[in-house]
């Protein structure tokens, strides 16, 4: 334990909190002046070497006596609408424009706010909103005419389903929130926004269902997120890593998804979701181990099918974790466990293999992991090539060259298939990593080592918590109602008998136990 404590202290000392002013220009403290020229000078100073900042002076009125200054970032503001609703409207305006109120009337823009400080100017320009200064008025108007480049809503390649909604989140926070709003049409769906990242000032939205979700949980999430000190956030994972209960654990204690239906279901169960601008990955918290073994599809296809599939997944998660270790243990320690006719074949296969079983197994597993990683990194066009190389190299040539035995290839492939059966990538990678130490332990202690490793993992899992919720719920501690939707999936009408469902339980448990910070 002292190692962890020491590392924790060491990490805490090395970094200090950065002041909020970091991202603002030094001119931010100034107030907007009545003189257009003076304002322009300040802007020029602040946006020195910013080629994408457009400043445009507009002359209007009957003789062009009135002047206005429009500032915006190229590519983030909607230029067509600026032309149509700002410039044309001003030039066509019959009434004289003397104040911002007059200007608001003249423009045909809904979202227009008045500001007085340069700090707000910089913030809003960075957010993509054009700012309009009027000559002779010591304040400015923010126009909500942003247009960020965003891809359209597409299906999710990372969490595909056969039955169920295909659309997934995109990189735009507003689009993502709208996808949620479309599914849960009630004002009880709350969206709280905050900013994270000293320089990036990433927009973060915390969504939850009022009345279902525990207020303490919301406060806890906000506290934890606000305590994070980071320069920029490009994905939820960067925050997840820092706000998890047990940061040193290999198991993810916060769930990630790209699917709106998953988020909606989680929120109705009393969980909260954390959206980040610029990434389609949304965090769900709290979560349990079994949530990672469930697919949204489980609820769309019948309960018999889903139950069978979930049991299948549970079996295969054990295979993914233990198959190579079991093979090593049995081959090198417990030869009497193998049926006689099988061991005769296995001996023949292994006769020419020069390595011990553990070297063979670890080598093959590492090769496979390399192959998989290469498959992810390779450009899409070369993707199929790597699978051909992999199949030929690992599958055939290695056997013919007597480097590995065919039995080992079978074990590796079953393990690979099993690891891809886990619906959530975060858990599947954790299982894949844990496989290696278990293999080494199996080569030293045989099945005894395998059993001890599993015991250690289960002890760790039961000791984990996700925002105060036991990670191994509903089995440790055992909750009968919630266990109906874990390894099995009870029919929906059975689960619905308690209108509060699983979350009712969960809320009480959070209150009773108190939050762990």
């Amino acid at each position: 334990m002292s190692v962890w404590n020491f590392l924790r202290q060491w990490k805490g000392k090395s970094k200090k909190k950065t002041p909020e002013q970091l991202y603002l220009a030094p001119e931010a403290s100034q107030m907007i002046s009545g003189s257009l020229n003076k304002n322009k000078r300040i802007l020029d100073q602040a946006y020195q070497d910013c080629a994408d900042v457009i400043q445009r002076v507009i002359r209007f009125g009957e003789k062009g006596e009135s002047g206005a200054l429009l500032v915006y970032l190229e590519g983030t503001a909607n230029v067509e609408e600026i032309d149509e609703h700002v410039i044309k409207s001003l030039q066509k305006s019959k009434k004289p424009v003397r104040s911002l109120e007059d200007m608001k009337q003249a423009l045909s823009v809904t979202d227009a706010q008045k500001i007085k400080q340069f700090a707000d100017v910089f913030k809003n320009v960075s957010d993509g909103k054009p700012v309009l200064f009027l000559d002779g008025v010591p304040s400015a108007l923010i126009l909500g005419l942003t247009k960020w480049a965003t891809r359209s809503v597409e299906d999710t390649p990372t969490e595909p389903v056969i039955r169920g909604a295909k659309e997934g989140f995109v990189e735009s926070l507003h689009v993502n929130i709208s996808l949620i709003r479309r599914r849960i049409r009630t004002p009880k769906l709350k969206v709280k926004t905050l900013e994270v990242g000293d320089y990036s000032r990433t927009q973060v939205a915390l969504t939850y269902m009022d009345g279902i979700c525990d207020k303490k949980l919301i406060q806890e999430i906000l506290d934890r997120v606000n305590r994070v000190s980071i320069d920029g956030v490009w994905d939820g994972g960067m925050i997840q890593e820092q706000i998890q209960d047990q940061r040193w654990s290999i198991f993810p204690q916060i769930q990630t998804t790209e699917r709106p239906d998953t988020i909606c279901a989680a929120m109705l169960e009393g969980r909260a979701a954390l959206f980040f601008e610029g990434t389609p990955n949304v965090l769900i918290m709290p979560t349990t181990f079994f949530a990672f073994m469930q697919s949204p599809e489980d609820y769309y296809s019948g309960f018999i099918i889903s139950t069978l599939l979930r049991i299948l997944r549970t079996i295969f998660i054990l295979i993914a974790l233990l198959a190579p270790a079991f093979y090593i243990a049995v081959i090198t320690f417990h030869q009497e466990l193998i049926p006689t006719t099988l061991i005769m074949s296995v001996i023949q296969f292994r006769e020419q293999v020069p390595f011990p079983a553990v070297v063979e197994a670890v080598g093959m597993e590492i090769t496979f992991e390399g192959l998989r990683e290469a498959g992810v990194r390779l450009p899409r066009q070369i993707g199929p090539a790597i699978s051909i190389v992999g199949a030929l190299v690992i599958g055939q040539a290695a056997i013919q060259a007597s480097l590995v035995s065919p039995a080992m290839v079978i074990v590796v492939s079953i393990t690979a298939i099993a690891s891809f059966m886990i619906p959530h990538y975060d858990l599947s990678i954790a299982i894949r990593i844990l496989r290696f130490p278990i293999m080494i332990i199996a080569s030293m202690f045989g099945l005894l080592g395998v059993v001890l490793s599993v015991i250690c993992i289960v002890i760790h899992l039961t000791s984990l918590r996700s925002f105060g919720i036991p990670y191994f719920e509903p089995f440790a501690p055992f909750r009968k109602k919630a266990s109906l939707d874990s390894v099995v999936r009870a029919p929906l009408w059975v689960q619905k008998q308690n209108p509060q469902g699983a979350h009712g339980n969960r809320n009480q448990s959070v209150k009773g136990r108190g939050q762990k910070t």
Partner: protein
Amino acid sequence: MKQHAIHTGKILLLIILLILPTLSGCKDHHELDNLALVMATGIDMTDEGRIRISLQLFVPQTGQAQQSAGSTPIQNQSFVTTETGETITDAFNNITRRMSRRLFRGHNTVIVISTSVARDRLGEVLDYFQRMREIRQRTLLFVTDDKVSDILAAQSVLERNSSIALMKQERKHVNLETTIRDISLMKTRPNKPITIPCIKLTEDRTDPRKKVIDTVGSAIFSKEILNGRLNVRQTFGMLMMTGAFEDNIFSFSPRDEKGAISVDVQAVHVHVRPTIHQGQWILDVDLRGRGALVENSTHLDPMKNRDYAIIEESTGHFLSSVIHSGFHKSQKLNSDVYMTYQAFDRKYPAEFQKWEKHWPDIYRTIKLRIHPHIELIHSGAITD
């Protein structure tokens, strides 16, 4: 910072020291390619009275040999080696000394004991195998008059080697399977009655070059000494009494009829009623079972009620004669392999305890009365 570095160094050293002793687990580790699988063990005696053991070892064929073997008839993948010694362990160690690999006996399926050893040194042999941790308690035992090494070296036509063939055929034909565990149980019974199937190497009728292993009955022991034999039919009778009988087709001639019938006898249940009447120990046996007529070369017509009853009756008569003949033999050999003592022990515990020490004398005088009730479930008549 520097202090911390020293700190972690110490901790790392501690962790390494703690992990080191765990490496001792690697000592138990045996790679498959360092093992020689012992498939069968044979125990024999030389003329000088030394123990001689023969081991049937599995010979792995490499990939290329396997491919070429695809076209030619499959050779048995076994090799038999023999060595003598003062004790079984001694002989075994003499074999180990010549082998490049560790002899692994976890897959030893068959133990063949020659009659010369079985006659008076069976206790010694059984003691060794009961002690041996690596040999399974479910290993099958056989007794043979032939040379043990010949049985092990016999080429099996269908299986990979003779031991697997023995294991499979025993279950299929006689259903008398005696394992080391069975023997341990049998040894607890009065007078230690033990039965072990008897095998014999015979020439194949069509191809004299090929040898076939036949089951020729069972060897009967009492007090771990080989006393005599039961033939195959008598063995079936014994199995019916002990409840281990599964099914078999018996062919016999009904009384007053020319020709023979074959009946597939199944689902035999035995209900035993012991009585002690004026010092006479009597065993009434209700033998219930079902039979299917498989073949009929007599004039009996199974479609007629009368003939039907005759077939049923004669089947029952035949079965009781089979049981009787074996029982009388076992009474002569003084080995209670029919486990009659159990029935008496349950009904007359006091009497039995009084006489337990003299059980051999009592067993000789037991009167067996069999009441067969065989029901013909299938006439076999389809075309008539």
